[in-house]
């Protein structure tokens, strides 16, 4: 008999699995954070050379770049779950998309905030209409729009499906929007702005940056699963397995 994925994707099955995984993710988060921060602050040079010397403030990179990455990846994760939910009509996927959104929005905000605090010492301004900053701002609006639409609709099913569709439309539009911000003048599109090159970065810096990224991933897993368990409980309150859970908890 083929493995029934839909059974595996039922909230009742997933709830205890998530519960067991959450502590694992928290331990990993703390471990990776400790390594990443230690390495970032004590094993890296206090100044970066080059024609444009970056002083100590470059250490913001260890949280700025990972949060910016997380903000984009989490959006893709959210849209993927939303799309799966729309196609296969599985309730758990919608709950997953819902659980990802707030964490994604937080990382987007953090990317903007840390970007501003980096921009001030290096460009002399907190905000610049730099394509990347502007795109990040648009992404932030997308997260907010998704959450606002979801909370504005009382019927959970309609809320799930409507916001899923919005997220998918958003994902299709995001490249167009980013591109239009990146190149407002199509006559001179060849001149792309600063491109990052991971291989050019000093090994120690790269190491702590990637460690921090992993730490943020683990953090996202942990918070998403926590939120997911809450959503499952609220929505499945009627079902017998939640009642059993409640009785078991009451006895201990």
């Amino acid at each position, binding site marked *: 008999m083929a493995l029934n994925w839909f059974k595996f994707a039922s909230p009742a099955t997933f709830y205890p699995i998530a519960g067991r995984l959450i502590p694992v993710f928290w331990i990993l988060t703390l471990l990776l954070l400790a390594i990443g921060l230690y390495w970032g602050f004590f094993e890296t040079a206090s100044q970066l050379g080059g024609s444009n010397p970056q002083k100590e403030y470059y250490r913001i990179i260890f949280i700025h770049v990972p949060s910016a990455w997380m903000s984009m990846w989490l959006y893709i994760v959210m849209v993927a779950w939303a799309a799966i939910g729309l196609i296969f009509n599985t309730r758990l996927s919608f709950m997953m998309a819902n659980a990802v959104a707030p964490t994604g929005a937080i990382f987007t905000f953090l990317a903007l905030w840390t970007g501003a605090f980096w921009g001030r010492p290096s460009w002399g301004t907190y905000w610049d209409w730099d394509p990347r900053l502007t795109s990040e701002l648009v992404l932030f*609006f997308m997260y*907010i729009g998704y959450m*606002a639409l979801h909370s504005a609709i009382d*019927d959970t099913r309609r809320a799930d499906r*409507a916001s899923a*569709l919005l997220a998918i*439309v958003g994902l299709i539009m995001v490249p167009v929007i980013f591109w*239009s911000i990146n190149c407002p*003048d199509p006559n001179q599109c060849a001149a792309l702005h600063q491109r990052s090159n991971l291989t050019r970065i000093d090994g120690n810096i790269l190491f702590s940056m990637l460690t921090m990224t992993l730490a943020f991933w683990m953090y996202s897993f942990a918070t998403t699963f926590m939120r997911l368990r809450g959503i499952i409980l609220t929505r499945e309150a009627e079902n017998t397995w939640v009642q059993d859970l409640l009785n078991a908890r009451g006895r201990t």
Partner: protein
Amino acid sequence: MLRVFWCILSRDLTLAMRRRTDVLTTLFFFVIVVSLFPLGVGTESKALQIIGPGVVWVAALLASMLALERLYAADYEDGTLEQMLLTAQPLSLLVLAKIAAHWLLTGLPLVLIAPLVGMQYQLADSAIGIMMLALLVGTPILSLIGSIGAALTLGLRGGGILLSLLILPLYIPVLVYGAGAVEVSQIDLADTQPYFALLGAFLLIALVFAPVASSAALRISLE
């Protein structure tokens, strides 16, 4: 197919003609917003020429936004939208006809009044021509994309504000290239061609995808 398209189009136009004020409010909103800017920014012709294209486009975005709320709302309330979902016609076709009617009533008037607005901002004749052309290509995109948001927020309390939150970020590309074309035309007319190529491409893509996405959204909202 065409018969059904015409049926819905003429129906929506007839409805609008029997309640004319709705069309006029959008138009006057646009004119008022555009006229207020010089009062705030100052009436120096150099400054006006610089901000003019951007202001006109932002005002057009807001005006089309304002009108979008009514795109499906009336039909939703009296149940005719529900009947449309149950007809033997592809829903995207009906949606496209409704969007076309909506554009004729709210987008086209903006294009036609653009010369007047251009004169307020001391734009050159060529720039005004480019602005009309850009609005002609750009405003249908606004109606098409906006229709998705209007369908998603159907019947929600505070739907109007929510709608702008959802849709305005998606309008960015049209704003960038629409206003960009007018700005560039003040320097060199020949440079505007790529802008129109891009806007035209957006329009084609929106024509294909927006009706499909809108009808999916309507089905979700009417469950």
